[in-house]
């Protein structure tokens, strides 16, 4: 008997759901905002942010910058969502949430390229402007991609930093992440090419490439092995966020840091104390600036002040003028070499 009642209720509920929808016609996102007929917002802009992971300190830094920018410009409506799983599929409910909440613009760092694209297209159909930052999504499902750094320059900058520290003379090694890491291998290729073509580096010699396997303990151990295996080693380039702090700590503890210099790529906050010694330089970018740029791009896009067209120019308060590149890409700038002099301007 219970079974029949429950079944009947279920069937009724289902019927009710379907019939509600019949009367409403199509299923689209509700836009409860001040967007005009052309989808352009005139008043305050409601921006939703979807990070890869809600608790990722990098993403929280972006969020804080976006909120500060919103407060400064009088638009304080920023919704920061918090996926707990760094997969693209886990971001879909958050896209749907922001569509339901009627935001005007979505800032997303894609956990993968495709997973959110159908949901983001629904957002675009509902008049929401989509801007990706940090990590791009499929280009058809967003307008702009705010890229934090020209990755092709990272390799060159790490070599520049190393050259400056060892006076462009002597042996150095590379301690990379894994043998198959795409970005790292591209940077190492750049380093090799620059060494052989640029006369400034004629006296510098890359002795070996070791791999830290994205693990702190392996990186520490490999860094010490390199120093002991090559007594004349002047420096190590560590192009990996886990590797650079681990190598710096290992060399520092064992008294090698100074005799051997380090350059590489890692969040400044993880290597700040070693940069201060003058024996480590880091290639990084300003993460709060990324948040500010992505936020203002989203707001101006929602107000129809800018379009993702190649060559278009727009200015962002406090950061200056930016030019839209091919495929809606906007570059924050070249990656910066962080030294004891400028370390304080990098809060992350």
């Amino acid at each position: 008997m219970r079974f029949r009642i429950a079944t009947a209720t279920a069937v009724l509920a289902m019927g009710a759901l379907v019939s509600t929808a019949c009367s409403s016609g199509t299923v689209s996102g509700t836009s409860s905002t001040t967007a005009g007929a052309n989808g352009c917002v005139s008043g305050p802009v409601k921006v939703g942010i979807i990070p890869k992971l809600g608790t990722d300190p990098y993403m929280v830094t972006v969020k804080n910058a976006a909120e500060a920018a919103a407060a400064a410009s009088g638009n304080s409506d920023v919704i920061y969502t918090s996926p707990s799983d760094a997969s693209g599929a886990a971001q879909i409910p958050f896209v749907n949430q922001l569509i339901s909440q009627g935001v005007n613009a979505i800032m997303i760092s894609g956990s993968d390229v495709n997973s959110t694209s159908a949901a983001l297209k629904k957002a675009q159909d509902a008049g929401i402007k989509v801007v990706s930052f940090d990590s791009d999504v499929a280009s058809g499902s967003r307008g702009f991609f705010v890229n934090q750094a020209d990755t092709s320059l990272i390799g060159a900058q790490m070599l520049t930093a190393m050259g400056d520290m060892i006076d462009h003379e002597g042996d150095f090694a590379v301690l990379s992440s894994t043998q198959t890491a795409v970005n790292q291998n591209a940077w190492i290729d750049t380093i090799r090419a620059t060494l052989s073509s640029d006369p400034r580096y004629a006296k510098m010699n890359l002795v070996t490439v070791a791999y830290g396997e994205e693990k702190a303990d392996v990186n520490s151990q490999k860094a010490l092995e390199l120093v002991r295996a090559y007594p004349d080693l002047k420096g190590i380039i560590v192009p990996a966020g886990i590797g650079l702090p681990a190598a710096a700590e290992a060399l520092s503890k064992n008294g090698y840091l100074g005799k051997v210099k380090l350059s590489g790529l890692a969040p400044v906050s993880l290597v700040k104390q070693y940069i201060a010694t003058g024996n480590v330089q880091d290639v990084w970018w300003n993460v709060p600036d990324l948040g500010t740029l992505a936020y203002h791009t989203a707001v101006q896009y929602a107000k129809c002040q800018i379009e993702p067209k190649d060559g278009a120019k727009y200015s962002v308060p406090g950061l200056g003028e930016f030019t839209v590149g091919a495929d809606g890409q906007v570059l924050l700038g070249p990656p910066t070499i962080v030294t004891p002099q400028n370390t304080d301007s990098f809060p992350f």
Partner: protein
Amino acid sequence: MNAAMKPGPRHTSSPASRVSTALSTVVAGLRSWSGLLAGATLLVIAVGAASVPNFLTPFSLATAMATLGPAALMAFPVALLVITRDIDISVASTAALTAACSGLVFAAQGPTPVAVAVALAVGAVCGAVNGFFVAVLELPALLVTLGTLALFRGLCYVILGSTPISPIPDFYAALGNNTVGLTILPWALVPAIVAALVAGVVLRGLPTGRRVLATGGNPATARYSGVRTRRLRFGLFVASGLAAAVAGMIQAGLTSQVSPDLALGMELDVITMVFLGGVSVLGGKGSIPAVVWAAALLMFIRKFLQLNNVSGYAQGIVIGVVLIGSLVVTNAASALVERRRRSAVSAESTPATTS
């Protein structure tokens, strides 16, 4: 009706007995788990509709149902497996492997019907592999499907590498993202509805359903009564594999790609639905409508939390608490019923012994 429902005639007048009558009614309500889940679902809907803007908009409902689709579809065969004292925790990996194989077909410009057929065939084979080890070789289902969970997922990475296949055929995209005609019912949920109807009718209306319950209730007795338990359990594993194949297609549609991490971790959603739906961990008992209500309850709780901008982490905590809470409530309710039944029995038998 059992003794706990009707208080003894001697006590009808006292206030204490009236309280206990009321208690009995509540307990009787609790014993209908689907009734309780339905009540909880309606409560969440009411609270959500009253307090959360856009909670019941067509878009909110349609996306919530679509997101639920793949896990709900896989929950029904798994519910039947749990009733026969088995379980299939490899379903999400099976979904990924079937999608990966069909992805190879459409990546090579193969026709979509072939891709679908490959997915279903691979799903059936995956189910048959589980069924062979569990039903034929009599190995524990939990361990076998734990093994195939890792095995099938590993094969996905072997087949696809780390690069997802995209774009996907229009059929997959429509399955994941479109609604039926002008309704808000997403195609992504249609297979789950069909599975629920089939599982519900089979379990309560057909001889096969009685065999499923008998096998779970007491496998030896069922075998001696002429139930071909091996064939039945093997068949349920194949059904689970086929459902996983369809779920894989839906998930590929939802995510616009076939990736090796497709539906990663979705077995947890499936198992949560089954056990929140009151299917007995010990087998032999379970109700498909209750699983339907469990799925609906989870869907509305998630939507409620989502639209309150609750983080994914906290959503996980809430779902975990709901599942544990449901176990505590069912346990306490059945213990209460058992105690009242015993006291009623002893009350009836007492006069006979004293006289």
